């Protein structure tokens, strides 16, 4: 490439970048890990090549349009073509494309090799949220000896290649954290993998990108990358035993309401009934796709219901989300404190979930699913019950 072209390309790219939002969280031009980086390194030259070809074509046409306007000249020579010229002009694009194809194939192969991953995390798409579980393994830092189940937000240690294994319980969803890697469709009946790795601690936003029905727009996810030490702390917290709310508090009432209203779908590990028997949820009896989020540690995440809504108030959210990478892990690990709880949205959710997030949980539409809901139904809770539940959930740290 000669210098002038390079300058033109740089100027063009600069113009494009100037047109971009700052800090758009799903920007694919801000790779934050080796996988996304290798894609970026492949795409940028291709964009430049495409841009240059585009400019050449346009400039050429502009010249023609000016130069060969009808100025009353004679009928031009009726040339029918120049085969040599045409063959040359066919071969040049072919050569350029061969130049693009070789690194493309290389990158495809490299990205697909998952033999080096050190941590396995399963994700399961379901209309319209992701379940994320950590199977027992020796990887993921110091290993995981008790399965961890969470939803919406995946926590990973930095500098560790993570193997995301995914599937779906209903329709096809697509797992995508743009700053960490490209998309991978998560297809029911199949297991697909995606390798991610983050260089720096941070919150990396993503979005389900395969159209999956009504609330496809509200099906998001985040990856929270933290230092290995923070990650160990997070793991420890996820496996700590259940504590019942103190006797006589609102939260204690909430526990009862939860058992009567919510526990049939939502699991809270360690929750016991009056006889001391563990309460095991059976979401498959109520929810068409068969699962509901595990709420044991709801307040350790800061978004809910498919990462579509904030558990943090607008004041508190930036403190975590905009935290510099040195402190983001610590901020995140604080979880949702009472003063930061976005009770407005949480209450709206409990009051009437389908009104907040479109779902076929509407009783008039349940014929096709034998009365099972898709998503969380409206439970017609009283305001008092909601107060109790919020108090109870607030203790799910």
């Amino acid at each position, binding site marked *: 490439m000669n210098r002038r072209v390079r300058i033109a390309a740089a100027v063009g790219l600069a113009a494009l970048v100037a047109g*971009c939002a700052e800090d758009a969280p799903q920007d694919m031009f801000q790779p934050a890990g080796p996988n996304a980086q290798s894609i970026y390194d492949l795409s940028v030259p291709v964009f430049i090549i495409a841009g240059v070809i585009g400019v050449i074509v346009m400039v050429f046409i502009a010249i023609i349009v000016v130069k060969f306007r009808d100025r009353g000249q004679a009928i031009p020579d009726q040339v029918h073509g120049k085969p040599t010229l045409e063959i040359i002009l066919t071969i040049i694009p072919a050569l350029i494309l061969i130049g693009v194809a070789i690194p493309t194939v290389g990158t495809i192969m490299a990205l697909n090799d998952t033999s080096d991953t050190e941590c396995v995390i399963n994700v399961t798409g379901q209309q319209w949220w992701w379940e994320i579980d950590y199977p027992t393994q020796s990887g993921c830092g110091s290993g995981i000896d008790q399965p961890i189940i969470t939803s919406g937000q995946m926590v990973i240690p930095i500098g560790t290649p993570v193997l995301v294994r995914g599937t779906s319980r209903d329709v096809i969803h697509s797992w995508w954290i743009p700053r960490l890697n490209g998309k991978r469709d998560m297809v029911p009946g199949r297991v697909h993998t995606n390798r991610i790795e983050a260089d720096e601690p941070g919150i990396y936003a993503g*979005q389900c990108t395969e159209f999956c029905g009504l609330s496809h*727009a509200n099906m998001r996810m985040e990856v929270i990358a933290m230092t290995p030490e923070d990650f160990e702390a997070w793991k420890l917290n996820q496996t700590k035993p259940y504590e019942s709310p103190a006797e006589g508090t609102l939260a204690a009432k909430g526990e009862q309401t939860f058992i009567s209203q919510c526990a049939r779908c939502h699991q809270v590990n360690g929750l016991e009934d009056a006889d001391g028997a563990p309460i095991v949820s059976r979401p498959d009896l109520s929810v068409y796709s068969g699962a509901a989020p595990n709420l044991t540690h709801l307040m350790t995440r800061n978004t809910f219901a498919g990462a579509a809504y904030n558990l943090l108030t607008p004041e508190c959210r930036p403190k975590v989300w905009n935290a510099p990478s040195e402190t983001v892990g610590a901020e995140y690990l604080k979880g949702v404190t009472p003063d930061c709880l976005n009770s407005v949205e949480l209450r709206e959710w409990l009051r009437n979930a389908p009104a907040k997030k*479109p779902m076929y949980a509407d009783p008039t539409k349940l014929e096709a699913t034998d009365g099972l809901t*898709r998503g969380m139904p409206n439970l017609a809770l009283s305001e008092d019950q909601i107060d109790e539940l919020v108090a109870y959930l607030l203790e799910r740290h």
Partner: protein
Amino acid sequence: MAIIERPTDTPALAGAGAAVTPSSSYGNFRRPVQATGWKSWAFTVDHKKIGIMYGVVAMVFFFVGGIEALLIRAQLAQPNGTILSADKYNQMFTMHATTMVFLFVMPMAAAFANYMMPLQIGARDVAFPRLNALSLWLFVFGGIFINSSWILGGAADGGWFMYAPNSSVPFSPTNGVDFWTLGLLITGVASQVGAINLIVTALNMRAPGMKLMRMPIFTWMALVVQFLLLFSIPVITVALFLLMFQRNFGANFFSVEAGADPLLWQHLFWLFGHPEVYILVLPSFGIISEVLPTFSRKPLFGYPFVVFSGAAIGFVGFGVWAHHMFAAGLGPISVAVFSVATMAIAVPTGVKIINWTLTMWGGKLWFTTAMLFAIGLIVQFTIGGLSGVTHAVAPSDTQQTDTYYIVAHFHYVIFGGAVLGLFAGIYYWWPKVFGKMLSEKIGRWNFWLMIIGMNMTFGPMHILGLQGQPRRMYIWTGDRAGDGFFDLAFWNLVASIGSLVLGIGAFLFLVNVWVSRKNPPAPADPWDARSLEWLTTNPPKEHNFDRIPTVHTLDEFFHRKYEDVGEGDQHDYKQVATGAEVIELEEKYADAHIHLPSPSYWPMVLAISLPIIGYGVIFNTLLIVAGAAIAVLALFGWALEPPTADESEFDPPAPDGDQPSKELAVSV
């Protein structure tokens, strides 16, 4: 009208005598041989009338799809839009795409192919005129059928590629998807029948001397498209049948519980879907390959290259479908193969771009509206094509897929390619078809507003997509729009405003038609054109050519007007005759006997039976029986009916001896 005797002065049918007693009289159900009135349109088998009706109905659907697009953009102009509910929004983009692709671009291209192909090859009609009418009415009724879902419980909501299993009953409980499958099966039959018809026409009905390599390039591209249709429609037919059996008869092709693989649908759909995108764009490539030479006053540069690259695009187009599935989990080998194959398709397409620009190079460019649209196509399509190449790089595509960057790509190739080309064709051939010129002044506004509008609408979508805005989201939130003035909110708003500009631009076309309706008759050869369709009057007579032309060269019409008076390598073209003179000469030597096929009821009757069966599948089995009965009736009626009506079926000549009108009565 069955038989036209020319150039005698005696009434055409006088031979039958005044005392006409229909030999096979069905009373009011006599063959609908009227030359005027609605029946002359409804039951016509004339490829030109059929072409016009195709075009008019397609245009109506363009505005339907456009209004759906405007509603989409209205919803997305602001974060958390409230104009459409999630449910309505999903129906809206599904139907927007379905309408635009299957009910606007494809039929509009069919309109041109129908109208122009016989004229361009010097034929009097297509090979099977009644089948042609069948195609038209299947398309019309199929389109109405799909759209009737709006008032019958909601339209399809699974997106235009209707991925399984999201299209199964539990996930899409309304009848929308049923309407969609059945409707597309019906329009599929239309395309299939049309494809066979037009292939036979192009291969078999060429005028003497019209060798394949002398065929006008539009005919060539239309021919390639018909082959693509011929081989891709059956594939989607299979997919649609499987889906219909799944939804309506309990089969479980896409039930994962039963062990089904959802990727089956994707393979079947895209094995159709990718050739489909070339089905959309190749006719427009053909159109501008006519327009550019005409207004550059030069032959198409590298005609054989353009022909073969078109065929190559069609051929390779069948081998790249999985580039729509780069994120679907195919495994690295397939991904690599399809990635490279997809890049390969840029080569023949590039050949076309290069040849078009070289056609203009050294020309004498006349910037009519048609020419502007053609040049617009080259520029806009190139942008879309190049973004296509960035998708072909599979790892990049895993970032880009299902974002607005893809939406930008395909609107640039579809709107900037297919649609601009169709408009070029409309402006170019309007005088041919309707015998009147459109206003060039309004045409210019039409063009520029559409160009500005499309770049304002679809340009920002590149930025939106690369910044991570996924497609098919009924709302987007401020949360993820980023900061700064040029955030995603800004670009979404620009796109929405752009769609209004685009809408106004498109609307100006209607204004133009309205304003130009009273224009004086167009001259015989308004553009100093080159190919055979201009070797007849504007609009053409019912029988197209007074005398079947004999073809000596590519660009036959041009060479009848201009002669090379240069010596040796020195070319010097002198006009030796005007277009009008050349046409007059043809009239003078008109053929004496011209046989044209007669109108028929049966195509329409047969066509209407299919939607009835469709409603039957959805609502009531009795309707299936009724529809099938009608179909059987129509098939037998059809088989027993001679292509040309008995002379006795015509009305006797009017008592005052007026000659029955033989000319095509064109009214808009």
